[in-house]
């Protein structure tokens, strides 16, 4: 009798962060952070500037050593196996950090060589990004536009076919069209099986991630899928608009039962303390305050609203 033994090895390529802390001169930049990223996931670290996102990236890419806690990337420990991590992850720092005086092609060749590979070997992975750069391949990196620089940086981070990709605020300072394009690229990379950890201060980008961690002052406030996070938000948010926006914020803040008031695009987002809040009452109040063209309607909860309430 023959036994056909099929062995299926599920490779769990993920990021595990356990109780990581890091201080700079007694100021805690990262405070007991714990999270996990599944393999093939697009995971977002969402938080304002100074929340500790970059420090987490620098620890996970072995540039910094944590004061406490431990972390593994692709099953390698960030302290003990830092060498293995360096050859299996791609990192794109927030600040453009390629050689400005080398051309697009030279930058790519340089990074390919120091990773012990060639441009041709992993061309398939970067092909659809590189095609957009190809017309400028003899131009110096310093002379590229912001969007092009970012594409080049992504190519350089991908040149050695990394298993995990770290992108620290990749879309900061990039125009909205390029930002959208960039996220489409990330989605395509994800389909190729690359685990992606991305950080961004833009809340609207959060909904494009599979899961997100909301982070502030070095602490993680919430981790979940963005849809779950917004769906779980129980308070009702109203979009309010009138002709005099500035006066509107002021008057809403003086409304006795207000919970929070903040500008959100063309509207003011208003949340009331009372469950039995009636928009008509507020309408009446605002009319008394001489507001005209008043619009009050229910708003859709966004990550930003959740974040504002944390």
């Amino acid at each position: 009798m023959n036994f056909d033994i099929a062995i299926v090895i599920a490779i769990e390529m993920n990021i595990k962060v356990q109780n990581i802390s890091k201080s700079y001169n007694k100021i805690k930049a990262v405070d007991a952070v714990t999270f996990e990223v599944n393999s093939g996931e697009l995971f977002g670290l969402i938080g304002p500037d100074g929340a500790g996102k970059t420090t987490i990236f620098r620890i996970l890419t072995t540039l910094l050593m944590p004061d406490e806690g431990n972390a593994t990337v692709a099953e390698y420990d960030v302290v003990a196996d830092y060498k293995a991590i360096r050859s299996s992850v791609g990192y794109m720092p927030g600040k453009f950090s390629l050689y400005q005086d080398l051309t697009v092609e030279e930058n790519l060749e340089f990074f390919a060589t120091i990773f012990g590979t060639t441009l041709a070997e992993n061309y398939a992975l970067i092909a659809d990004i590189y095609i957009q750069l190809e017309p400028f391949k003899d131009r110096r990196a310093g002379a590229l536009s912001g969007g092009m620089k970012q594409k080049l940086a992504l190519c350089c981070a991908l040149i050695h076919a990394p298993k995990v990709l770290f992108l620290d605020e990749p879309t900061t300072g990039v125009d909205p069209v390029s930002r959208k394009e960039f996220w489409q690229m990330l989605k395509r990379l994800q389909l190729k099986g690359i685990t992606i950890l991305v950080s961004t201060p833009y809340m609207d980008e959060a909904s494009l991630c599979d899961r997100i961690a909301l982070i502030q002052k070095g602490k993680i406030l919430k981790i979940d899928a963005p849809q779950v996070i917004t769906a779980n938000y129980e308070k009702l948010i109203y979009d309010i608009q009138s002709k005099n926006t500035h006066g509107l914020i002021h008057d809403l803040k003086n409304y006795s039962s207000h919970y929070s008031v903040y500008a959100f695009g063309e509207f003011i987002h208003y949340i009331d303390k009372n469950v039995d809040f009636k928009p008509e009452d507020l309408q009446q109040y605002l009319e008394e305050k001489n507001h005209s063209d008043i619009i009050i309607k229910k708003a859709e909860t966004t990550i930003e609203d959740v974040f504002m309430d944390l």
Partner: protein
Amino acid sequence: MKIILFIIQKEFKQIFRNKSMLPIIFILPLLQLVILSNAASFEVKNIKFSYVDHDHSAASRELIRTFQSSDYFDIIAEFPSKKEANLQMQKGNVDVILEIPIHFERNLIKQNYTNLSVSINAIDGAAAGVSNVYITQIISSFNQSIKMRLQIYNQGNEVQPENILTIPSFWYNKNLNYKIFMVPGILVLIVTMLSLFLSSMNIVREKEMGTLEQINVTPIKKHQFIIGKLFPFWILGLVILTVGLIIAKVLFNVPILGNIFLIYLFTSIYLILILGIGLFISNHTETQQQAMFIAWFFTVIFILMSGLFTPIESMPSWAQKVTLLNPIRYFVEVIRMVMLKGAGFNDIKSQLVIIAIYAFAINGFAVWSYKKTN
């Protein structure tokens, strides 16, 4: 190996693309060599000479005439009083005041003895020292000749003057041409300065641009990166040396008596040492300005204590000991010995060994302090 070669190639590309650095690297040092070698002279000429003659005798006039006939002194003025002369010295119009006392000639004849007062502006101490030597020489030769004549005159009979003539013979630099002495030294200075500055600014530049962070997450090895970054400057140092030697030979006609390969052998080890110092500076600074400033600080000390401008033998003994740590000192010694004296391998062996040990120690220290993670 392939990675090192690739980094070297990248470095050269960057050096040649930096349009503002190219002239600084290749043209300025050579200009420096040409200008400094012509200008940095130890000869003191055109000393502004003045005198106050209270005696107005034949002897005093003769003394002044001897100063007049010297190449080194320009007779600016005769002053009626010391007070006025002092005033002019204060204004900077004269450098030397010779005061001839009253009864100068009479005392010489009668007592065989008289005093002369010489005041020298010593704001520039070195020049004052040299002036002093010239003045003493002139006065003592005058002294000899006048004594003889006075004796003849006094005794009324002919006495054969006893003359001891010293004819100095300057070895290794027959005409005492200061350029032959200076050019090799200035060449050393330029090779050192250039390689130290460029190497210390180089790795810091990657820090400043943020590219070091990107490099640090790659599997590149410490030694690959360091060798790749520094090797181009080792080559540049040797290129500058070559061009400098050609200028020294063609333009200044400096003799190269020894084997030129000894100079190259020494320089190639010496450059490793200098690049090590550059790497060390790079490791401990965050910006190019900081690196530049520290490199400048060391260069100034190295130059002033190298024996290039002031002889080491005339330094206080503690300073002489400090110069033992000065790499430029050894290079200046070796290049002068090989070029002017024709020294062979055995003559420079001790310097070579010292520099090699030094290079090994500094580089070991620099590499050890270079960290990829913080």
